[in-house]
């Protein structure tokens, strides 16, 4: 992996972004629950955890300036309840990069770990953007 940030052109299947760490604090969970009209259930909603991974992905993927990227599909597996206050680590890698006509599709693999407890979520996200 190069020391400098990679460009979109340099992303190839197998590339791993540096892991991103998030604390799922009570204030984060409360803010997320308010945003999705959800009730406070005493644990972290699984999609709140995914939201952290997607945000990490959005910050990591070096899209050309002005590019509009569209979230095309999402696969997820929830592997365990996560308590409020947990610290998670999001691992994101490039699974596929496909150019088809005027569009390009970037497929990313997500693996999320609750530090000290193991894997809590895994999935794939496909992002569509102009080629």
């Amino acid at each position, binding site marked *: 992996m190069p020391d400098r940030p990679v460009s979109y052109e340099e992303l190839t299947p197998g590339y791993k972004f540096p892991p991103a760490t998030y604390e799922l604090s009570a204030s984060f969970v409360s803010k997320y629950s308010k945003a999705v009209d959800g009730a406070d259930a005493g644990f972290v909603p699984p999609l709140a955890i995914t939201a952290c991974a*997607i945000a990490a992905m959005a910050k990591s993927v070096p899209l050309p300036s002005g590019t509009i990227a569209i979230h095309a599909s999402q696969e997820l597996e929830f592997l365990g309840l996560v308590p409020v206050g947990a610290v998670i680590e999001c691992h994101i890698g490039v699974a596929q990069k496909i150019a088809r006509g005027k569009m390009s599709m970037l497929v990313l693999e997500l693996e999320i770990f609750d530090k000290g407890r193991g894997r809590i979520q895994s999935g794939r996200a496909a992002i569509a953007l102009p080629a």
Partner: protein
Amino acid sequence: MHEEIQEGKTLGPLVKHITQEKINLYAEASGDFNPIHVDESFAARTPLGGTIAHGMLSLAYVSEMMTSAFGRGWLSGGRLRAKFRESARPGDTLAISGRVNCIGKEDDVSYANCGFECCNQKDEVIVTGEATVKLLDDSR
């Protein structure tokens, strides 16, 4: 709730109204400030013609419906595959619904396979997908 989960059972509908305020709240909570979601003047100049909601906001509503139907079986053992087919926009009213297509067993554990969709007020499909849920004692 265990015995209530049967093939053909309908899930939802859950009805949610999308506003720019909700989109902004979601951006703040998730940290995803892509201008296509939050910058109305930028979004107006794109082919989309205006801001759109985060796909994950619509998917959060799907998860809320699944949690309501299956409880911990969904939260700790749920799987989904979703396609974002159209964008949800401020002013849209979304109806999220689903159906238990079949119930199966694998390694002595029962699973429900469900289909779901999220449509706007014009009946345009925003999200479609499939979900598999482990049926725990507290979810059937």
